[in-house]
């Protein structure tokens, strides 16, 4: 096993981001036909993924990760907000459903490789179809065949597996085919919803390494949705933490997991078993965190009389070195309280686009 240090690739902050989400919201109606009740699944999500960057979205079940993915993939219609791919608002461009052009820019890899491949077809069929639908198959049969073999090689499979049926392949191999199918379209962004959670432990790291390779070699951006913090740290340049439909903290992955500022992030980090970490389990502290986090729906400290501003939306605070672009949205965050590790923490961040942040500014 080699032990060379992996330096995170320099992601340029200039240029148009590959995917930008602004103020995305989603509410689901609940109750009967005439009921006006609704449940807020997503609220004011702002997330930017630069070209050639992997952003991890972490959170527990029910935090809204998958709803966000479904909205971005346009399998679900967002209630508000904008989704920009390459600077173009795709919700305005194709108003009713996702266009083929959109699908060519953004592809998905799903959690269950056993369910996402039709058992009646050979591997050849899935890739060929992707190529044909998006007009990437080239002119001749020869070119198509070459492209198919290329795709298989890229994802670390042998070209003769093109003739296999899904049941002949292992979970890891199937997930690689699912990735190859997404790659066939030559997308800018791949949305991967828990791509490794159904795989065997020994093949997970291989799939993660493949995703990393695609980023490094082909400059593909990815939104990696997971509940496994360790894999987020391993793969993603930046990590965003989702809690009850809102992003509560975001930053450079290593920095975020080393200095979590939001109580919910602290709770998540403390829950990961890690024998290398001394005192990783402190029941008293965890019970406090759990109670604080679970007591409310929107913000952990909503309604706390000691929090003067708790009736307002929390504002974004910068955490630590600005280079890490680490911010947190929490009333409880006190830069001076954590001065030891966050010496540079500063004033609330003023965000660039006013529409979705009007409330934040009002409270600031």
């Amino acid at each position, binding site marked *: 096993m080699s032990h060379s240090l992996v330096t995170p690739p320099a992601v340029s902050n200039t240029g148009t981001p590959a995917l930008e989400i602004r103020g995305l919201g989603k509410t689901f109606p609940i109750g009967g036909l005439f009921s006006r009740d609704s449940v807020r699944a997503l609220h004011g999500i702002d997330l930017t993924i630069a070209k050639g960057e992997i952003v991890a979205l972490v959170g527990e079940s029910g935090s809204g990760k998958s709803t966000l993915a479904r909205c971005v993939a346009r399998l679900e219609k967002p209630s508000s907000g904008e989704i920009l791919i390459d600077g173009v608002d795709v919700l305005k461009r194709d108003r009713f459903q996702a266009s083929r052009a959109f699908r060519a820019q953004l592809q998905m890899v799903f959690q269950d490789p056993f369910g996402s491949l039709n058992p009646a077809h050979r591997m050849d069929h899935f890739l060929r179809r992707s190529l044909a639908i998006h007009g990437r198959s080239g002119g001749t049969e020869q070119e198509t065949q070459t492209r198919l073999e290329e795709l298989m090689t890229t994802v670390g499979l042998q070209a003769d597996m093109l003739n296999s049926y899904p049941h002949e392949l292992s979970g890891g191999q199937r997930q690689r085919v699912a990735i190859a199918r997404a790659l066939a379209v030559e997308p800018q962004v791949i949305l991967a919803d828990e791509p490794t959670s159904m795989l065997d432990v*020994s093949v997970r790291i291989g799939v993660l390494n493949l995703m990393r390779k695609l980023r490094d070699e082909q400059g593909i951006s990815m939104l990696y949705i997971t509940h496994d913090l360790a894999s987020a740290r391993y793969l993603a340049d930046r990590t965003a933490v989702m809690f009850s439909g809102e992003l509560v903290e975001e930053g450079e992955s290593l920095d975020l997991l080393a200095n979590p500022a939001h109580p919910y992030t602290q709770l998540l980090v403390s829950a990961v078993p890690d024998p290398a970490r001394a005192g990783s389990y402190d029941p008293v502290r965890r019970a406090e965190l759990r109670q604080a986090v679970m007591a409310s729906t929107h913000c952990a400290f909503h309604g706390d009389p000691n929090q003067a501003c708790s009736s307002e939306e929390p504002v974004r605070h910068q955490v630590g070195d600005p280079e890490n672009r680490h911010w947190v949205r929490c009333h409880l965050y006190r830069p001076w309280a954590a001065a030891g590790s966050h010496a540079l923490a500063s004033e609330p961040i003023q965000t660039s686009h006013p529409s979705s942040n009007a409330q934040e500014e009002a409270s600031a």
Partner: protein
Amino acid sequence: MTISQVSFGSHEPVLDVKDLTVKYIGDTRSTTAVDRVSFSIGTGEVFGLAGESGCGKSTIANSIMRLLKDPAKIAGGSISFGGKDVLALSPEELRRFRWQDVAMVFQSAMNSLNPVLTIGEQIVDIFTTHAGYSRKESMRRAGELLELVRIDPARLKSYPHQLSGGMRQRAVIAMAVALKPSLLILDEPTTALDVVVQQEIMAQIKDLQRELGFSVLFITHDMSLMVELSHRMAVMYGGRIVETAKAQDVYANPRHPYTQALMGAFPPLTGPRLPLTGLPDGVKFRNIPDLAEAAPGHFVAPFGADASVVESVNLEGAAR
């Protein structure tokens, strides 16, 4: 305090498995799922069994409970529990042995609750069937049991679908410890749960274990979780144990290449980002020899060019 720093139980073995061999016998060929596996679990000890899917972990658990069905067959070896030969129990003895002596929490235990009965009815059923208590007495004990795993006793009237995944799992664990068994088998008890809930459940098991003093056979593929929880652990590959030692020793100094690979499959939460390889490409172990003591209390199957055949196969072949 980390949860693994709890004192060891005595070394009086509760469970002693010797040379256990289980075969799945087909019409044309048979497969050896568990191959001459030996281990013992002391009183109050948490023993972990790690390995990837298909390595035989669950087959061992099912053999101990005598739950194997055709075509699986115990082809050799012995299992003794507190001096009793488990493989020779009569059906009536077996009925008492299960749940009173050894209880098991299954993989996806959340789905093992009966959806048309309330939680209370299902717990009461255990007491009336196995302990012979009256309904009223059973109901009272069922309430206590839920309190033990920090669920409101009012939930006795709830149906499984009204509880969250974590609560259902805790209810199943409560049912498993209802008759104060001396051994609890946990077969991937938290695989389907979120990390936060997982940590709470494992802490609860640890608390219960301290309170009631049972031994635990803990089966999982999550090495970090295993090291945090177990006193001693064994790593399995292809039906064989390749390494067994104190959990901390395995973690600090994994000796078998497969153990090292399994450790390398989990990215750490601290330290620099190192590239991980998981199982080295195209490595497969065949004919794994018996364990030999490599250091005091640290047993490793000898490996290398002559002892075990390391065979080159393609990348994905190594994973299957």
